[in-house]
């Protein structure tokens, strides 16, 4: 699975790219993308799919090993797929890469406290606890998760599940197809009976 590919400020290391593809939410689209990568010999380190902010569009975050293929070709080949609407390479942006992991680790009365201390340091949540094990949930970039895993290994990791990377660019810039117009947002607020003034929409609070 994914290896550590970022340094502390979230920029990708040379060789690895974070590509975001906005795709039509249609059957077979994942296979089209996966099949394209296989066919062209591009290496996927991780691939994460989920809904985007727009109905009918999914967002794929693909971590590509850019040493196997020029990233420009990856983007262009993705664009050739009819179901792919937009492709962005976030690697040269200030971005926030995140991954979620669930880790089931052996625990007993003696070491449970140590484990909780470690979890605390990594800001991991305990989501399940039993007499001989506990499940930690941690969110962060790959380095952080790798770090936690390393700390937990001596206790015995019984099961590990990681999501693969999702990412978003910092600041106002987006990788969406088109943003909702302020007009629409105003309507939503008005329908909810909230008073709207100025153009700084939407508000975080009223």
């Amino acid at each position, binding site marked *: 699975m994914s290896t550590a590919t970022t340094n502390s400020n979230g920029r990708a290391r040379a060789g690895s790219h974070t590509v975001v593809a906005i795709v039509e939410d249609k059957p*077979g689209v994942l296979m*089209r993308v996966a099949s394209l990568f296989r066919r062209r010999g591009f290496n996927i380190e991780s691939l994460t799919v989920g809904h985007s902010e727009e109905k009918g569009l999914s967002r794929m975050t693909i971590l590509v090993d850019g040493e196997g293929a020029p990233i420009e*070709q990856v983007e262009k080949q993705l664009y050739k797929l009819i179901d792919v609407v937009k492709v962005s390479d976030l690697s040269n942006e200030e971005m926030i890469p995140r991954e979620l992991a669930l880790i089931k680790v052996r625990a007993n009365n003696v070491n449970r406290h140590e484990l909780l201390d470690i979890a605390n340091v990594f800001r991991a949540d305990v989501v399940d606890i039993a007499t001989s094990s506990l499940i930690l949930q941690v969110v962060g970039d790959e380095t952080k998760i790798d770090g936690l895993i390393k700390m937990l290994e001596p206790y015995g990791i019984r099961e590990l599940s990681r999501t693969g990377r999702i990412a978003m660019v910092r600041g106002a810039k987006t990788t969406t197809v088109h943003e909702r117009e302020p007009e629409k947002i105003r309507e939503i607020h008005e329908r909810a009976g909230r008073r709207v003034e100025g153009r700084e929409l939407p508000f975080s609070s009223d």
Partner: protein
Amino acid sequence: MVLESLEREGVDTMFGYPGGVVLPLYDTLPQFPGIRHVLVRHEQGAAHMADGYARASGRLGVCLGTSGPGATNLVTGITTSWMDSTPVLALTGNVARTLLGRDGFQEADITGITHSITKHNYLVMQASEIPLAMREAVHIATTGRPGPVLVDIPKDVFQEEAEFYWPEHLSLRGYKPTTEGHDGMIKRAAALIDQAKRPIIIAGHGVIWGEAQKELVELAEKAQIPVITTFLGISGFPENHVLSYGWLGMHGMFYANMAADAADVVIGIGMRFDDRAMGRFKDFNPNAKIVHIDIDPAEIGKNFATAVPIVGDVKRVLPKITDHVQHGVRTDWLRWIDQVREEHPSLHIRESRRMLPQYVVRTLYEETQGNATIVTGVGQHQMWAGQHYFYNKPRQLISSGGLGTMGFELPAAIGAQMALPNEEIWAICGDGSFQMNIQEMAVLVDEGLPVKMAIFNNGYLGMIRQWQQLFYDKNYSSCGITQPDFCKLADAYGIRALRVETKAEVPLAIKEAREYKGPILLDFQIDQEENVWPMVPAGASLAETIEQPAEELAR
């Protein structure tokens, strides 16, 4: 629904083969007299016919197969269209929706199978979605860089009742081909051409599909740039033009290869810098700056670093470049290539008592005054047909380039003749290649098509023999091929046939075939061991082009 959609898209011909799950469609076929259905003998033939139809006419070709084997038999033909970017719509039936995914009788996951060999494909799960899927499929197949699109329809969807709704407007947010070309890049290209001392244009299949022959001629003439083509680009630039220097590549003309290797600016137009054309990539003319014009952005920079990339439709981009370039004078450069051509003519046919295949092609060229449409299979005969016939009109040569599909010639010629009933169509066939789709002779009879078949019969899989002779120490392994008596076979189908055994008979046989109104087969017993020259050995660079060795010339 399917046929109604086809009719609205202006389809008048389709090539197909019935089967269990497409019977509902065949049941309604008689209600659409505007669509002529050609019954093939093998689905591969249907796919090649649709392809040949498209290549000859520039319009969409349509083929149809049933589920399972019917669909998988189309695959080779679809891949052929994919590699050569031709607009083909492949329709397949599939098992009923309830059986999909349960390995029903004659079920094949054809949309899964064809993901990587179609521009796009559809599995239509509701009858009401058929018109939109068909319309999108035709739009995608015929616009931008053309390509095959497959529409797969389960049997019970054919039978389902739904209201026919024809979408007037399409909105495909993931598909918007760029056609205009970037103005800044166009200016940079023009500036680079103006500075160039030894520019060369390499014109590809895209010039033919973009219908940009006139625009290309104007640019070449204004800037005085010599033009060579790729194999599939043949006929995109008139070969009788003074600036035409043949085609390049593994069996291209010596002077074309040398010119490409000596150029300081290479202008690739509607082509994809393929390995068969360019030789060993890393040693292709390292001094050349590349201008690349193509409608598919993914082709640019795929194999070579490009100095000036222009994404757009060649028909729109070329006139803009022509506007910006200066009138050129490049006498020295043209004279240099002329001199290479004088010293290494490549297309000279030596005197011989043997029936040399080159002589047969040249005689055909002379007899038809260069006006026939030539369709070839794959192998030695294909290369000779490309070399020794001269093509001036676009779409005059129809051949499987990218995929190199043997068995292409006969069905593609049938498709071409269906598209162009008044043209003279010659299928130049290899004795091996012809046998791969020999069954389609029946279609010639069914449809009364006057296709002329010229079999280049040397008793070998000739290109295999040539490679084994040159690179495998004459270890002729599985290249001798026993054949049926082609004349008797044609006779069995009710097709006239002539065996041509001596050189003297060649022009007479061609004359006779041309005068004959129906389909006719000529079995040319050509020289058995003639090789195709010049040759760039596999993995060598264009600079290493080899010409016919002296001992062969003496044969």
